[in-house]
């Protein structure tokens, strides 16, 4: 029995190392100067660690262009309004769908659920036309709009599944006391759904921050999110690439969502499982 435990921990440890290795290598690469990268092994630790690459990744080369700082800020400017609008709209929709016995509610829910699986490429071009007609193409509000549209299905689903489990008596009691649609939502259902709310916020933050396709399609010069800028930075260099800068830039772009994940832990897992199981 004893040696079985040892084997178990060995296997798990190896797996954990395999999962962590790319991240550790990325980090160590970002601290190396270029000649160390050229001369040394991928696995070697940095001999003379320097934050120079991080500075270049953030602010650009020689104080010039190419840094990610601007797009990093853009991403935040896009994420927060999109996050609050989509979670607000999704929670309200989920609430109305599951707790008010409306005709066609099931039909609408089915339509929303299916929407979760439609590849964005299928509706991409019409959406471009819509956003362009609204005069929002290439702007932050335009990006916020498309994120709200494409995030609606997921958030609605999350809240609908939660509200579905709210006892009917609670609704009845609230209505007997004369509370209206919004009052019940605001004073009873929202406080009740705070955990789901947190899950929705965390996951929407992650999804919107990590988005690439919508940023690539709908952003302009001043509204480019960090994922798109990162891909351009790594893809567009001529001659020899500065791998340390690439790796530092990659880590910078990954940092916000990784931090959110590390600090939210359980909630992230629950959301991913809940959202996943249901659709």
């Amino acid at each position, binding site marked *: 029995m004893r040696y079985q435990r040892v084997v*178990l921990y060995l*296997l*798990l440890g190896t*797996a*954990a190392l395999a*999962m962590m290795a*790319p991240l550790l290598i*990325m980090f160590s*690469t970002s601290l190396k100067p270029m000649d160390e990268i050229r001369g040394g*092994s*991928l696995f070697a630790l940095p001999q003379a660690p320097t934050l120079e690459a991080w500075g270049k990744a953030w602010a650009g080369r020689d104080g010039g262009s190419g840094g990610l700082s601007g797009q990093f800020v853009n991403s935040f400017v896009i994420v927060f309004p999109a996050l609050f609008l989509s979670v607000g*709209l999704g929670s309200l929709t989920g609430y*109305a*769908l599951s707790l*008010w016995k*409306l005709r066609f*509610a*099931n039909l*609408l*829910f*089915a*339509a*929303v659920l*299916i929407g*979760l*699986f*439609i*590849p*964005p*490429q*299928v*509706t991409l071009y*019409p959406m471009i036309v819509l956003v362009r007609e609204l005069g929002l193409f290439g702007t932050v509000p335009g990006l916020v709009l498309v994120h709200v*549209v494409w995030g609606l299905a997921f958030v609605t689903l999350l809240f609908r599944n939660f509200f579905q489990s709210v006892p009917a*008596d609670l609704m*009845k*009691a609230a*209505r007997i006391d004369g509370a*209206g*649609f*919004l009052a019940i939502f605001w004073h009873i259902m929202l406080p009740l759904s705070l955990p789901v709310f947190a899950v929705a916020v965390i996951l929407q933050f992650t999804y919107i921050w*990590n988005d*690439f396709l919508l940023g690539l*399609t709908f952003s302009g010069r001043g509204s480019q999110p960090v*994922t798109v800028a*990162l*891909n351009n930075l*790594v893809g567009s260099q001529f001659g020899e690439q500065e*791998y340390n800068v*690439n790796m530092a830039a990659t880590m910078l772009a*990954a940092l916000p*969502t990784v931090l*959110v994940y590390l600090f939210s*832990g359980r909630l*992230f*897992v629950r959301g*991913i499982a809940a959202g*996943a*199981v*249901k659709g």
Partner: protein
Amino acid sequence: MSHAEQSRPAILMADGGAPAVRPRWRLAPLTAARIALIPAAVITIVCFYAFIVWTFVISLTRSRLLPVYDFVGFDQYRRLFASARWWTAMENLAIHGTLFIAGCTVAGYALAIMIDRGVRAEGFFRTVFMLPLSMSFIVTGLIWQWMLNPVFGIQDAVRDLGWEGFVFNWIVQPDRAIYTLAIAGIWQQVGLCMALFLAGLRGVDPNVWKAARIDGIPTWRVYTDIVTPMLRPVFFTVFVLLSALVMKSFDLVVALTGGGPGFASDLPARFVVDHILNRQELGLGAAGAFMMLCTVVAVIGPYLYREIHKSRGAR
């Protein structure tokens, strides 16, 4: 919620009826509920379904840079099916999909079982395995592009260790590049499968384990013969989820290989975006997009049908 409230006259609870006396300015609650659903309904009907129809219509025209509505029947589909690049992309989707789904499922299930054996530091292992999930596919793609770089990456590092002839340059081999996609994809998504399987394993009735122990059944037999069949719904969910991810795979291939070398690791999602955004072949791109939708319907349709049926029954 208290019993006193429930014993009030039932007439007040009739559907649609608010209490008899209510302020005039307030909407009837059901009307308010209907109004609240308008944005979602508009978005769903217009941005999902009307736009699908629109894309289909465009795919029947000769549109290039901008949509023009002179219909050419299924010409764009004929062009699509005659395009070698499209078939490479579809073949890659099949290869990548199979490897990715199988790899994630097997590795995720194995990790979940190991963690479920009551290990210490469970939280640590779970956090580590799920960490890549929080990162963008772009980030994952760029990390692995670096790891797989033939000049500086794993190949070089292993040669430095003494295996001079070690070759691991798949990312620049046209017939191997597609496999690197599965490596990066599995690395990123295996944590999701692990979490789903772990939740499933934790849901198994402890009495099953007690009974198996009393009968003296070895642990591995309990997993293969009893627990795994019980988790069939979880396997199904994992399959559907990963399929949806595979069909949408765009970012990962853009960041990891750029579809290259040439178009050797292209995927349908990239084919479509490339034709719509860069190549001014709107009609052809729309046709490709519509074929993507058909693929999704074929694979995920049955699951959705069941899921929607179930939620109706529950009401």
